């Protein structure tokens, strides 16, 4: 009777039967959902390096490293929320608020840098918890919840500073930005660490897999005995913490607490995540994609400057590049799908 099954075609296991290793690798690659964004990054990188020798130079790469740390960490954080099927629009404002608060604590309240940073991160976490409560307990849509914070947090940053940057941040604080670990700026290093941590959590821990489950089918997850509310709460806290971390890094980079910083970064971060393959309907997407999504945006932005594109034209060019990248990627994956269906 089991025999009767095993010879049934429709349900043969995934892997196509023996195939030359070479071709297999290629097909495997073509099948990786993230391949599109990765390829784009590589292509653009080559193009830009060819166009200007300084592009691939250490100091320029380091500059890109700083930007990458900012957008990348935000993208990672928001990915957690998106995986649960939610969204976090508050990132940019939380960055501004935490940037200002950390500066204020350090410069005005004269807390030593580490203490100031710790307190700031606590504040960020608290914001995350608040989001979690609104979404899980009150059932307010994530979009609305975080939109309110988008307004309120920005407002708070403004109210604290009355619009003037907070100066007088201590050396130790700004050093966070000055140092390099084997040529890698500290913020970039932090970003890399975050990537690894996120990967381990999402791919290799039960909690991580459960996060996917919650995003994939919340009711089912509940019935399967998963503590969905905790997972969702966690996602929002992670997201807010990342924003707080970026806020701290910015203040250390600017050496002042600037309330105007981070305007619209939430969209950049979400864009990076989505371009990297995180599905906005939740439950699908991987860390690699997010990382490369962020890299892509940074590479394009720097490239435009390197190529002397007039600031009046940079945005439209950026838009066109993205359009081309996305379109080609879609066409690839559709080809793939068709090919799949063709082979029965």
């Amino acid at each position, binding site marked *: *009777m*089991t025999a*009767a*099954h*095993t010879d*049934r*075609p*429709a*349900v*043969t*296991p*995934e*892997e196509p039967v023996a195939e030359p290793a070479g071709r297999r690798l290629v097909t495997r690659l073509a099948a990786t959902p993230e391949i599109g964004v990765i390829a784009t990054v590589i292509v653009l990188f080559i193009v830009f390096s060819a166009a200007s020798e300084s592009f691939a130079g250490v100091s320029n790469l380091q500059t890109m490293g700083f930007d990458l740390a900012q957008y990348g960490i935000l993208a990672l954080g928001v990915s957690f929320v998106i995986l649960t099927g939610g969204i976090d629009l508050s990132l940019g404002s939380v960055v501004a608020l935490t940037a200002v608060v950390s500066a204020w604590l350090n410069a005005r309240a004269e807390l030593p840098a580490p203490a100031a940073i710790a307190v700031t991160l606590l504040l960020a976490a608290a914001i995350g918890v608040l989001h979690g409560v609104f979404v899980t307990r009150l059932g307010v849509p994530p979009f609305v919840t975080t939109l309110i914070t988008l307004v309120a947090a920005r407002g708070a940053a403004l109210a604290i500073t009355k619009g003037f940057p907070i100066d007088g941040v201590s050396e130790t604080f700004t050093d966070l930005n000055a140092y390099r670990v084997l040529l890698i700026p500290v913020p970039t290093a932090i970003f890399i660490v975050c990537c690894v941590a996120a990967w381990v959590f999402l791919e*290799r*821990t*039960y*909690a991580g*897999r*459960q996060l*996917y*489950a919650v*995003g*994939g*089918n919340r*009711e*089912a*997850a*509940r*019935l*399967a*005995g*998963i503590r969905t509310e905790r997972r969702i709460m966690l996602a929002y806290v992670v997201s807010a913490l990342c924003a707080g971390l970026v806020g701290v890094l910015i203040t250390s980079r600017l050496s002042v607490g600037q309330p105007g910083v981070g305007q619209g970064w939430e969209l950049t971060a979400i864009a990076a995540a989505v371009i990297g393959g995180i599905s906005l309907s939740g*439950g*699908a997407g991987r860390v690699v994609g997010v990382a490369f999504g962020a890299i892509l945006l940074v590479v394009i932005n720097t490239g435009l400057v390197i190529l002397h594109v007039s600031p009046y034209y940079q945005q439209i060019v950026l838009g066109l590049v993205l359009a081309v990248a996305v379109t080609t990627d879609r066409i690839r994956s559709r080809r793939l799908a068709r090919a799949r*269906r*063709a082979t*029965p």
Partner: protein
Amino acid sequence: MTGLHKAYGTTTVLDVPELVLHGGQIVALVGENGAGKSTLTGILSGIVRPDRGTVEVGPSTLRPGDPVHAQQLGVSLVAQEFPLFGQLSVAENLLLGRPPAGLFVDRSAQRRQARALLDRLGAAIGTDRMVETLTVPQQQLIEIAKALGREPRVLVLDEPTSALGPVESAAVLTAARELAAAGAVVVFIGHRLDEVREIAERVVVLRNGRLVADLTAAEATEQRLVRAMVGAELSDLVGEPATAATDRDAFTAAGLTAPGIGPVDLTLRAGEILGVAGLMGSGRSRLLHTVMGAIPRTGGTMTLGDRSYDPGSPADAAAAGVGLVPEDRKHQALLLDDSVRWNVSLAVLPTLSHRRYFLSPGRERTFAAGAAAAAGVKCESIEQPVRGLSGGNQQKIVFGRWFAARPRLLLLDEPTRGVDVGAKAGIYQLIEQAAADGMAVLVASSELEELMQLTHRIAVMSRGRLVRTFDRDQFSKEAVMTAATTGAPR
């Protein structure tokens, strides 16, 4: 279970003073659609919170409406709608609910355990496949394997075999027996009375939320069960099609091919009911989807009536007079959060509108009420969201939608999946009515008896092809099964 009571709004859907289930026994729970079966089992497994009453499992009392606690007490449910995670692998779906063994996932162990569970059901499904790429039947198997994996003390199977072909059903029933033999309680909900009588040692009948009969297997004759369920005598189920098919060709497909199916040649005459049998994954659904234009066909020609028929999309098909009742009502047919009215009128909206574009609410309401009643839908009001309806009632709504559209070719994929005997007979009547009115009907079903009762001819599919067609006089379970299992290889 004692003093259980459940009401939604003004209607009491369950009122069971006492029900005791003994270990080591398979108890069948039968009843019409909406009788309260899923509600009862839902309460038992903590998904539904009763208004009154308690559930004891062994020594301890179930915390009402707490599915996690129910699982801890060893109650595990195979629900009517399978709550699976499309984006996770089969293995993860099977084991995710388990209390984590430490912080990190041991994937190889996960694969091994998953494989073991699947083999118990003889399901050769890759453990790394993403569940959303699986078919409905396969998903049902996963769901059952998941429940078995919890080594439950109480296993509830809510229509486990409704989506399965004969072979798979057999495997599931065996697994259930083994579990019972090991001392667990197995509660089995089903509408196939023969199956019920084959497996159950005790049969409990619900009607309108009340316990109306509690019989041993011996007492439970088909007659008695049906009387208890419907509360009325049923003229024994339709023996054979009331009307003979005409000789006008209504639909023909020549060399029809599509991803994974064909070439398929078949001819349907007006007023004919053609059954499509086959094992799961044999291509029945895909054939229907292809005819409906939902899967782009890669070759061959089709004619509908005397005109050539080339649907680029289901919309074209519908316009040409073809309708499809899909097998997965939840994902392929219903707007769960919208009203019965919206769902019933979905396929005929343009015809309900006046001055070409505008809907007239009055006309729509009368139409919807009529169509729902015609399909025998049980609901408080046509404004009630369909999510609240029982599985069978939901199925009838989908059927009502298409039947009201009066297409020339009606495609039915598992049309009576999860539909009770009484309603089933009703749907059969509707189908025959359709045929009598000159519609051509193509019925894909995993219930051989159903096909043998209902159809003029049965076409058997295997590996995407039509391997053989039987006329009524040739009908025999054995022959059909052999054709299905040992279909002509590619």
